[in-house]
């Protein structure tokens, strides 16, 4: 609690700038995980941010107000925890202003949390009469016992609805299907999602006709693609690769000359998409495989985590080259992606061992190399990948085993991440409480009633960040490089 005053203004004042900056600052402070107090405080920041923006963004009032708010909120929270019934019935006055604020996407994503806190704040502040009275209708829709992990409450709620009937009317069937398949993790993994998205967009473009009085260049990306993108985003937060691909696609659309007839323009776009997938994924994969396979020698014991298609390709190619090696697939619940890879590899004739992450110390013992796939490579050289990867890399570092990351440059981002808290994705807690290994018929575990237990929270996050120090080598289609060269490659690949 004592550290809070310096943190608060820092978090509150520059809010009109990009939201990234303050959060990172905060996170640096929070990172060591000082326990509940700190987490609570962090949440307070967020709450305060929302609260302040309401009166009109007067930064000067902040420190005083914030302190009050924090105290009040904490009390409220404790009371709420005791009562289990949770949130005060009162609504959230801050919603409107918070939403108005620049309309930043991240802000929007956070809104459910902010709203709730707003409600609490309002409850205390009522005495001052400063805040407008809330609309109760919205409060009713919010379920009373909402569970959230304090440290991760800024992330988007995982309880996404799948509902075709509620989709935007312009959303293309291919996107509807893709959204469902992504929300159910049928299509999972950065490159698969990227390719699937681009293919779906091909379908969208094929079926697109420019409405009268406008041009394809002006209409397509802004009016026609944006609902599609929004739909995909609502199905599951977009992967870095998808974002990169979509950014590229929009750029391509905007550079199409207005004079080109629509049919030709569409053909051109379709061809460009095909070429893009080929260049950025298919051919890139082949280049990476060609490089990576050279690193595998007879007698290697290769440890890998979960499933990465590119790693799988490397291993398969090494097997085709008659290299004698062994693979240890380390996996984790609930997605059990490693099992898929293990099945494919063992059917292919590769000597495989399958284990879960709790047996990591055993798995790493006779390893000679660690091959990892990536969800994204961050600009500071850190690897953002399936949760559990970092632990494996850490072990490998400890045992002085080289850690090799295979990653197409499409997954590179200019984002910087220091920990797996600022950016992450929450998955459904129910996936953890369901003990079924197969995804057929759930086995309802003892924790499946977790929503009714007030002091129980379940955290199911998707990703973690592996520090650059633990990574020996990154293999991209541009060649092998140390993690520190990631920004260079990123610049290379985007400025082409």
């Amino acid at each position, binding site marked *: 609690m004592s550290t809070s005053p310096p943190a608060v203004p820092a978090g509150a004042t520059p809010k009109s700038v990009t939201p990234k900056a303050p959060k990172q600052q905060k996170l640096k402070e929070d990172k060591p995980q000082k326990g509940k107090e700190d987490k609570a405080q962090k949440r307070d920041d967020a709450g305060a941010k929302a609260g302040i923006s309401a009166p009109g963004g007067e930064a000067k009032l902040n420190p005083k107000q914030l302190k009050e708010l924090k105290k009040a909120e904490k009390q409220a929270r404790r009371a709420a925890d005791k009562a289990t019934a949770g949130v005060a019935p009162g609504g959230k006055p801050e919603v409107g202003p918070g939403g108005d604020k620049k309309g930043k996407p991240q802000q929007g994503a956070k809104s459910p949390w902010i709203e709730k806190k707003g409600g609490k704040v309002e409850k205390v502040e009522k005495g001052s009469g400063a805040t407008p009275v809330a609309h109760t209708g919205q409060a009713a829709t919010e379920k009373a016992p909402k569970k959230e992990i304090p440290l991760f409450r800024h992330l988007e709620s995982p309880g996404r609805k799948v*509902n075709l009937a509620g989709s935007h009317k312009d959303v293309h069937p291919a996107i509807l299907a893709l959204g469902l398949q992504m929300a159910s993790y049928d299509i999972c993994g950065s490159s698969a999602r990227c390719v699937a998205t681009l293919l779906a967009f091909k379908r969208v473009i094929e079926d697109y006709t420019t409405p009268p009085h406008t041009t394809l260049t002006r209409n397509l990306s802004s009016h026609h693609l944006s609902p599609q993108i929004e739909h995909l985003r609502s199905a599951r937060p977009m992967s870095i690769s998808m974002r990169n691909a979509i950014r590229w696609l929009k750029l391509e659309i905007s550079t199409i000359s207005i004079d080109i007839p629509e049919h030709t323009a569409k053909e051109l776009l379709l061809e460009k998409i095909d070429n893009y997938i080929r260049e950025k994924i298919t051919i890139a994969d082949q280049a990476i495989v060609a490089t990576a396979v050279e690193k595998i020698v007879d007698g290697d014991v290769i440890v890998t985590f979960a499933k990465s298609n590119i790693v799988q390709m490397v291993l398969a190619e090494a097997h085709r080259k008659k290299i004698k090696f062994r693979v240890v697939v380390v996996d984790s619940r609930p997605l059990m992606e490693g099992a898929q890879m293990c099945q494919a590899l063992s059917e292919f004739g590769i000597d495989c061992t399958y284990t879960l992450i709790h047996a990591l110390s055993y798995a790493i013992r006779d390893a000679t190399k660690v091959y990892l796939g990536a969800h994204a490579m961050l600009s500071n050289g850190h690897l953002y990948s399936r949760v559990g990867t970092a632990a494996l890399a850490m072990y490998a570092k400890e045992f002085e085993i080289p850690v090799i990351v295979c990653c197409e440059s499409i997954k590179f981002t200019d984002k910087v991440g220091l920990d797996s808290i600022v950016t992450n994705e929450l998955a459904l807690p129910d996936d953890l409480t369901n003990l079924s290994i197969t995804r057929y018929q759930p086995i309802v575990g003892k924790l499946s009633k977790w929503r009714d237990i007030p002091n129980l929270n379940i955290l199911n996050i998707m990703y973690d960040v592996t520090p650059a120090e633990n990574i020996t080598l990154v293999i991209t289609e541009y060649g092998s490089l140390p993690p520190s060269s990631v920004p260079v490659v990123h610049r290379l690949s985007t400025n082409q």
Partner: protein
Amino acid sequence: MPAVADLGFQVVILCGGGTSLYPYTQPEDIPKALLPVANRPMIYYALDYCEKAGVKSILILTLQEHHPQIQSHFKSSAFTSTSLNHYWKSIGTQIEAPSSLNDSLQSADVLRVAHSKAWIKGDFIVLPCDIVVQGIGLSNLVQVWMLEQAAFGGGGSGHRSGEDGRDGRRGMLGVWYGVGGEGAVKGQETDALIVTPARTKSTQALYNSFTSAASITPSTTTVHSLLQTHPSAALKGITDSSDYPIRHSLLSRHPQISLRTHTHRDAHIYIFPHWVLEFIRANPRLNSLKDDIIPWLAKCTWQKGLGEKMGLEGILTKRPRSAGNDGTDNAEDEEEDFDVGGRSTTQVSRLKKVTGFNGIGTPLKFASRVSGHKRSDSHDATGCSTPTPPQSMSGSFSSLQPLRPQEPLLNRTPKITAVLTPEEYAPSATPPTPFIRRVDTPQLFRETCLQLAKTDVALPGQPATSANTVEAGADTQAQPKIDPTCNIAEKTTITSQDCLLGPNCMVMEKCVIKRCILGPNVTIRKGARLMDCVLLEGCVIEENVKLDKCILGRGARVGKGSDLRDCEIGHRYAVEEETEARGERLVVLDGVDDEVVGSGWGSDEADEDYSESEKDEEEEVSDDDDEEEEEEEAVSQSKKAEGPSTASLTTSASIMLPVSPAPQAAGPGKKVAAPPPVSESVISRIVNLPTGTVVEKIPIGRAKDEKSGGEAAKSK
């Protein structure tokens, strides 16, 4: 209707002749599609179902003799004044009655005709016209289909069929509904089916959320994979003893199965990918979707070698280009390379033994592929609609093909997703059980009508006044159950929550009406007691009549003091005064009047009465005018209720077989009580003469022939 996303499916509504609904649908009379169910033409329910899901294209296939009537109905004021009109106008609709269609053709034959005429452009949904669905939206079904069957990567629904069988996807979806529970009709048709559970995600998708902790209760509609199905009636043929044979190969592939013999019925709601049309074309001996296509395709998913025999290999691997497609889909050939399914971390990829590329050699591949692509583009640029010659295409592709290993056909055969509603319909359950009924027998017709009268859900075809404000909430606001134009005398009891009274009904004093549906212009005179009855347009009930569980056709008339129970009374039939009848079917027989010339008393009377009643109501019933002039013969026909003979078949069971080694598994089938042989039922034909009654016995076969063009012509 708020704007909904296009699901990308074309809906094909099959409007058959409705022979099984005899005597309420007769060839020269009202088509089945327009028979009022709870005072709405039957087809409205299908249309409403499509509207809610935002379907953008509907194809109605009907018989030639019905075509003009259906066609004109959609132009008539009866339709244009409803809320459906706006929807109907806003989408692509097509009503077709090809000359090659006749009553003896079955559903698959009809689709074969439609396919040959290239009316079906892409993936499609088949609906029968006699379906009533509440509580489970078409979009939810499509949602499940997309999750289970849509191809990965741009593979929603549409006209492209390049991804068939990839990742074992792009199969079908069907709905089977539980026949039990409230308003169950005994002895109705059921289907036996063997299913294996699908992923929980799919069931959750039905309920619009992956959040729910998959609490599958008995009242949950669940998603399965269909392995085998056939009509329950065929159980007799399969099971000579009490055993139910199950193939080893089925059990070895699907150790966890559940078998239902008499609890579910095929709703005939199918979501089909386009290749199924090719399959239908390739197998001309398969006549019916429900009895042939679905069962065979289900077997193809586990029986080795069957798919090859049925020609699935060619259908799934070749990319069929349906005529009339624009040239856009040659671009899809390129997608062959982008194996999204294999890339996905939650799917098992198939690694090929052969080296697909050899490191350095890759740029060459790239170049060659680009050239192939250019070639296909040039075809496009020329704008010719002729498809690319398959030789050149496959030629250029054979070099690229090894990129994807060829799986054995069995593993690629798309599955059939089966959505099973709970066995029992219980409106009060949580979550509420969906209400699905096919209305194809008079008993089902009555029960369904009464059930619909009870629900508070708005029935389709609201008057257009509310349709314009429909966005606001006509969905939730049910229409008044008793039409304001009704004339109801005092001292009459009408249970308003489960009765439905059409416009201009007249009910005189001291009547008791419970759980009844009265069509427009029905007159009920003093002291009548009606329970569980359905009265179509223009019926007249005289004084002190007692009706229980009866259906009265249009313009039927029941004489003073009659007491009828479980009776089906045909159109324009006049029941004599003081008649007492149980379980009889009283019909005006048009077809046999030549044989019984001279005994025209009943019919004349009936017709006169009817026209009188028309005048009474001051209402034009235009459809019937022509028929009234015909010389008609009133012949009443009483028939033993079909119920008992099949009622004993209603054993139901779902068993879970243990994961057991195959050899042992042959026996443990579900024991099915063999039904008693259908009793030599005899239809006695009673010729209604003023002097007395002549009873004539005719064998059932002949009676059926008279009725219609044979039972085989199932109306779909």
